[in-house]
């Protein structure tokens, strides 16, 4: 914003001294001394202008220019939305007496605004029509006695500028209604958009504003609930007085007058009830096809079902786990049994083979003494044979199978009697030392 007024100084400026010179008549000499940082109070039109300049980094002159442009644009736009609808030739032929059936908005050229038209618009539209259709102008053009349409204009103005009458007219202005979408339309179009515009137009009768919007498929449950709650408790200012039958205003027939009045009141009531029923049906229709409600119900059910299913699943899982555990135990027991059996058999086999080995070794032992001819020189006597074999038996009885096997290993392959004897005597000696044989036992082998 500009400082509108320039300060005036009465004291005169000094005369330029002789010989003063500067580049383009200007000489920068010093600079400003230090400044203080302070806070401007963010209040008032001039501060807002300052904030605008600061935020958009404009200079004073730039800002002046932009502001001027914006101001100019505003003027233009107010002219632009001027009401310029073509006039209906049928309207021009209207009889002003039949004003009840005329569309006041259309007469003034405001049919695209209707209940949304502002008072300002109505005033401007009226003025425009008056300028065009004033009977004096018609008279000047040579047409006389044609003020019918002018009267229509005046009537429209009278109705629309009176808030009470305008509401009465708006109540019955069916051209502002949006018809509920048909099934065919719904199948093709966007459900929410179609119904949304219906409720937007119905919302004009609401006593409480703002009217909640229908929303779209992404609306939350709260929004949808709010919408339906609002509409099922809809408080409407719609009245049907406008459709009243004319009450005869002569004083002659009072009964007739009262009769008509009663009739009107009843008709109003009836229409109001019908309107409420109509609205109720609209709502029922809208909610019946509302996928969001279904979705929310499903979600609620799903939540309930989910809990139940989860419980069932948990039970089932527990059961299965128990069963698996039992099976595993059984399997483990079987396996253990089989293993034990196998082991037992292996042990048996080992025992038998050990027994066989012992037998074989014992044969080797006995064979060895036989090989050594029972340590006798020449033919061995029966007594020698008995003594040696008895001693071999004795030794065998004193030592365990491993030692027998070791002894047999030593003896195996030996054929010379002395060698065999020395092995036996070493064994006997060892056994005597170990205390298993007494000194003097197994003499024949020592």
């Amino acid at each position: 914003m500009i400082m509108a007024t320039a300060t005036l100084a009465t004291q005169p400026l000094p005369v330029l001294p002789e010989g003063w010179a500067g580049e383009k008549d200007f000489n920068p000499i010093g600079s400003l001394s230090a400044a203080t940082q302070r806070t401007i109070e963010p209040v008032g039109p001039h501060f807002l202008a300052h904030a605008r300049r600061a935020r958009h980094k404009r200079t004073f002159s730039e800002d002046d220019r932009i502001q001027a442009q914006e101001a100019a644009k505003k003027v233009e736009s107010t002219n632009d939305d001027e009401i310029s609808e073509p006039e209906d030739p049928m309207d021009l032929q209207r009889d002003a007496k039949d004003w009840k059936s005329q569309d006041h908005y259309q007469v003034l050229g405001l049919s695209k605004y209707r209940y949304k038209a502002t008072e300002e618009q109505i005033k401007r539209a009226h003025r425009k029509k008056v300028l065009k259709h004033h009977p004096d102008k018609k008279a000047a053009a040579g047409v006389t006695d044609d003020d019918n349409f002018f009267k229509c204009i005046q009537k429209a103005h009278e109705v629309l500028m009176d808030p009470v009458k305008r509401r009465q007219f708006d109540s019955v202005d069916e051209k502002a209604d949006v018809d509920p979408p048909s099934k065919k339309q719904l199948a093709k179009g966007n459900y929410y958009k179609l119904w949304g515009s219906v409720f937007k137009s119905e919302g004009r009768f609401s006593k409480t504003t703002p009217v909640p919007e229908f929303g779209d498929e992404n609306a939350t449950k709260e929004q949808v609930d709010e919408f339906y709650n609002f509409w099922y408790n809809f408080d409407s200012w719609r009245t049907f007085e406008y459709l009243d039958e004319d009450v005869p205003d002569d004083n002659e027939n009072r009964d007739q007058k009262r009769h008509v009045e009663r009739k009107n009141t009843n008709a109003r009531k009836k229409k109001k009830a019908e309107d409420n029923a109509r609205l109720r049906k609209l709502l029922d229709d809208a909610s019946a096809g509302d996928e969001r409600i279904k979705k929310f119900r499903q979600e609620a059910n799903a939540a309930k079902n989910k809990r139940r299913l989860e419980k069932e699943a948990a039970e089932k899982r527990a059961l299965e786990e128990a069963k698996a555990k039992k099976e595993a135990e059984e399997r483990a027991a079987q396996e253990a049994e089989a293993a034990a059996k196998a082991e037992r058999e292996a042990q048996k086999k080992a025992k038998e083979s050990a027994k066989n080995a012992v037998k074989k070794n014992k044969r080797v032992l006995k064979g060895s003494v036989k090989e050594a001819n029972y340590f006798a020189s020449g033919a061995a006597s029966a007594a020698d044979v008995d003594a040696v074999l008895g001693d071999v038996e004795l030794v065998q009885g004193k030592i365990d199978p491993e030692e027998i096997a070791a002894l047999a290993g030593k003896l195996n392959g030996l054929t010379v009697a002395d060698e065999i004897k020395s092995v036996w005597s070493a064994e006997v000696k060892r056994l005597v030392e170990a205390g298993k044989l007494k000194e003097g036992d197994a003499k024949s082998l020592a």
Partner: protein
Amino acid sequence: MAETGSRPAPGDRTVIGLVFGNSNSSIAYTLDEKAEVIANEDGDRQIPTVLSYVDGDEYYGQQAKAFLVRNPKNTIAYFKEFVGQDFKSIDPTHNHASAHPHDVDGVVSFTVNDKEEAVEPSTLSVSEVTTRYLRRLITAASEYLGKTVTSAVITVPTDFTDKQKAALIKAANDADLEVLQLIAEPVAAILAYDARPEATVEDKIVVVADLGDTRSDVAVVASRGGMYTILATSHDYEFAGCHLDQVLIDHFAKEFIKKHNTTDPRENARSLAKLKLEAESTKKALSLGTNASFSIESLIEGIDFTSTINRLRYEMSARKVFEGINRLIEAVVKKADLDVLDIDEVILSGGTSHTPRIANNLAALFPESTTIVAPATCATAINPSELLARGAALQASLIQEYDAEDIDQSTHPAVSTVKHIANALGVVTLAADDASSESFTPIVPAETAVPARRVARIAGPKNGGDVLIRVVEGGAHIKVTKPEPKQKAETNGAKDEDDSDDSDDDSSDEDDEEEEKREKVWRIGNTVAEAAVRDVKKGSQVEVTLTVNADLSVIVTAREIGGKGGVRGVVKAP
């Protein structure tokens, strides 16, 4: 209705200006760029900040205030100062005759019986009380306007802390009210004056004295091209409206005792409450007329009391308070490093400003060139009780089209904190009578926020020709001229008589001071630039435009009015 904390879209807002005071609150709206204060359903424009609960019914405003006599325990008054404060830091003096504040975990709370009988009394935090009270104000405004009020600009004292501001915004949001902005009270008062259609944008220093019921706040504000910078502030709890009430209470209580020889009615809580209410209305009557009556039915022990007082008697009794206010204002001017001669305007705001004596005292304190804007001294003054609400409403109408985010950004310190030039910037001119004496003509005054642009029209030399434009900084100082001794000697005889005449109402000290001539004199400081405008016609004027940029560089343009061309130059930033 807007949900708590949600912000309505700029187009859907219904805005009001709201003053939430310690004693009284008011609401205003704008109609065709004119602010109007709204009367509530009781017809009050000044709505007492009082809530009272009787049998579960909530009363507010004047009705609630009347309950201070009959139902003080369930009546909450003077709670605004407590918003956002710890219990430790509050002064509960004024709540003595109403519900007492107490400490609930550091939160200031009141315990009142706000439900039907036979229910436990409930404890309300001060923020809850504020929310309830604001809700009543909003309802009153909505009913008056026929639309639900969604948003408001609220005024706050300049010493309101961030915590208090946050608490107030929270309380307002809880009452379903969007707070567009909190604005400083002195600035709201200036805005109320500056937004009048006849007002012009001037560079001036304004003192705003906001004299309320429980506190007085004074601020020195530099108004530069319609932008306001607060230079100094002062807050006082000693010299305010309630102290004037106290003067009247004491006066009439003494009279009552003398007349009826009874106990002191000030000792009895109910009698004191009656005295207080009547004293307030008598005080108001004395602001309008020179006589006022004071009558209370059954003041104490069933005795009715009626008396009258004239304004002179009242002003003498209340002299201490009036002088205190004078001292307070003088001190703030000093605090801002200024002299009373620097002050162009004194705006009195707040209910106590109706008192004619205060305005008259200030008229004597300040030089004649200073305008004292108060009902007693200025015919065009706006009702001082309504100033703040009007200012707030005007600001609300200015910013109601802005998005909340836009408001935050525009009021951000990065935007509002800027450099202010320390010295005035102007040109050297010649004194009218003496062509050889140079003097300083300020164009951009000191304490102007940069960037700034000022235009001045200065007469050219008498005979025309080339002129020199010397842009210089200027400093002001107060020149005190003692009366010449010779004159004194001459008038000595007469002066003695004067003295004896004057000594009745004023001390002779002040007499001497008054004889001193104090004036503001400009000193030419360092030269910033020189420029020449050639061939100026005889008798024409030169227009000098000085633009100081945000970096303190200066653009000087000068041209002869009606002439062609001109000169333009830039002085670099320091």
